[in-house]
């Protein structure tokens, strides 16, 4: 492990072009960074009589410009995992209503209450640990999850799992939230529009009050 470290560090330095590019800005921090690197390399080359001199030379030499790749995780979500079985449960009022009934019958409500959570997380806040598309919810139902979600795959007809997934997907829809009448939400679930799960990739949040384009380009002269 120690012997690999200088190599990967060198690669990192070459790619970034500067020894202190990893997320630090300012004047004091780069100094600390160099110091840290020197210390690390010193430790790595421990035992070599001339190790210190070599290590200190690394950050300032062998810098050969930016090496980039086409990989951009998190920017453009290509839906290669789209499950064709999900299609039937979009825009399907019957599915969400059946799912609501099953949600109680299989004790989902015991942990997730009327969508607000309890033993298990809230399902109405639009925050998803394992993905919020209908097919991802279905996958969570099938597989279970490590923090306490049981796995239902093979124990419950798969169609019912899709119906429960549709209901769960519906709970955070604006239409479903707006229909709440009283202290118990999720009683009139809206069907899940297909558009709700279409991921168009990253974009600035719709409610930003200043134009991201300007920020990107820099201020006008």
């Amino acid at each position, binding site marked *: 492990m120690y012997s690999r470290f200088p190599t990967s560090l060198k690669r990192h330095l070459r790619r970034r072009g500067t020894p202190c590019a990893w997320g630090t800005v300012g004047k004091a921090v780069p100094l600390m960074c160099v110091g840290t690197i020197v210390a690390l390399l010193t430790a790595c080359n421990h035992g070599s009589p001339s190790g210190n001199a070599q290590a200190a030379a690394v950050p300032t030499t062998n810098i050969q410009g930016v090496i980039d790749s086409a990989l951009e995780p998190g920017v453009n979500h290509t839906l290669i995992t789209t499950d064709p079985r999900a299609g039937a449960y979009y825009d399907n009022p019957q599915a969400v209503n059946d799912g609501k009934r099953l949600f109680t019958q299989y004790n989902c409500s015991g942990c997730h*209450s009327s969508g607000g*959570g309890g033993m298990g997380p809230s399902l109405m806040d639009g925050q998803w640990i394992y993905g919020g598309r209908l097919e991802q919810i279905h996958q969570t139902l099938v597989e279970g999850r490590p923090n306490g979600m049981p796995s239902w795959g093979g124990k419950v007809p798969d169609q019912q799992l899709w119906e429960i997934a549709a209901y769960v997907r519906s709970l955070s829809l604006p239409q479903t939230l707006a229909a709440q009448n009283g202290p118990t939400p999720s009683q009139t679930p809206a069907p899940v529009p297909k558009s709700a799960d279409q991921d168009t990739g990253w974009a600035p949040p719709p409610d930003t009050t200043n134009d991201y384009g300007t920020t990107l380009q820099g201020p006008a002269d």
Partner: protein
Amino acid sequence: MKTSFTVPTLLATLALTLAGRSATAQTVPAPVPDNEVFTPEQIGHALAAPTPGAGHAAASPENAPQDDGQWTMPSKNYASTRYSSLAELTPANVKQLQPQLSFSLAVIKGQEAAPIVADNTLYIVTAYPNYVYALDLTKPGAPLKWKFSPWPVPASQGVACCDVVNRGGSVSHGKYIFNTLDGQTIALDVKTGKPLWRTQLGNINLGESITMAPVVADGRVYVGNSGGELGVRGWVIALDENSGKLLWKGWNTGPDKDVLIGPQFKPFYTSDQGTDLGVKSWPPDAWKIGGGNMWGWISYDAELHMIYHGTGNPGPWNQEQRPGDNKWTAGIFARDPATGTAHWAYQFSPHDEHDYDGINEQILLDMPFGGHMRKVLVHLDRNGYVYVIDRTNGQVLSADPFGPVNSTKGVDLQTGRPIMNPDKVTKLGETIRDICPTASGAKDWQPSSFSPRTGLIYIPHENMCMDWMNEQVNYIAGTPYVGALVHMKPGPGGNRGAVTAWDPVQRKPVWRIKENFPVWSGTVVTGGDLVFYGTMDGWFKAADAKTGDILWKYKVDSGIIGQPVSYKGPDGHQYIAILSGVGGWSGAVVSGPVDPRDGSAALGMVSVMSDLPKYTTAGGTLYVFALPH
């Protein structure tokens, strides 16, 4: 009554519409009117008039030995008095009380444990993942001696009904002994923090977890399971203190041989007499998934050589699915500590309809009653009554309400049974409104303290009621088995909590401090006549034990639901320690993954606690206080 939700509902809906995606809390429902509950005069009963002249209430020296300044078990002593005789702090000087140190627990779930102090070391067990810390009190700043991470299986979080809490450990013979959420009991070497033994007791696939503090006495470790909301069958187990090996296991439902009922079983009341009542008082096989768990307090009686432990609610909550008394749920057992053999049992709430677990603390006292000194246990039940019980035979001597009660009309002292109020019987598909106390009780697990100086019990409790509708529920192993849609609300007066100083001899409150939120922390009372407790909005307070005047308070980083303790430091001075970290059932709306828009969330608790996120945030810190010196 039926319209009480209308205005808040309209407001909440309007706010939701306006705010779009932002989390808009429900409005806390209006309090239940004063005349909805009974007065103590209407429903309090005793077998004899008070005879305070017959003696002074106190714990026996066997059960509450002379205070050595340590705090080695959550209950302080076997009598569970949580009384510290230290008297450096007094009403006159408590205003100078200052924080001496704080220590982050690195866990921001509800912290219900008592800090433990033994041999100048302070031990803490956190909520899941149940880290254990040992701090060296002899050095400045109390540096960490060791930390132990038991790594409970993460899925155990999914079977913990009411936040992933832990109520503490105990030090005995060089070991720190505690339980993990995934059902282990572990003994650590106090010097090294390394396990000397670890025993798996529960199975999360059945919904079992463990949150209670083990009781260590007489070479044995007593442990019970949690899972009353998941159809888990309750038990109490004794382990050998030195090896962790099982000595006995007593089930709280089922046939007599499982419950360890034999010829020595002599319950006081007729309805508790018979064979296999733990089977016969249930629909067929329902006792196997009927709850009766032991997740609260066990008292060991060193004087009479007995243990006393409560039993939790029957499952499911929907009472219409389990006709019968549902023995031995929502009650109490006296068992032989060596064998587990039951000597007597009693149900506070036979055929419980309202989730009134019987697992709260029992304080073991010698107390004047009917002109004589009696060996009693005082139990502050979820159902709202202070029970004074002759602990030699299980006879209820008095039962008086200490909180809002209308689900029952008193306890019939001839039969021992509560007199049910037909207006508050729960029904399938029909919401029964304004049931008091609420499901979490007039008081939950949070333990009281007793001062031999004042003769008073300092009860931290709730003032909350609820609306309840039964729902049909199926049993699926490892999932909730509840069957009720509950919405809680404040009790009469609107203050959701209180600390009450209760005189068990005179059967009445002496003073009461009202709090906005339920008081979910324990209390400790000291030889300087101070009572310490914390609030869910993050105040740690000291009250005058005689008058209830708040003399000092300090704001900590998060709400308090832990157990304060008082100990003598290596320098000879008195210290007060408490964990902050809001959570638990009542605080899940802050510490848990819970949405305040769903009033039914967290088993109906969110309805009454939806404003808590405006007052506090999740945290988890040890605070230690002392006078400047």
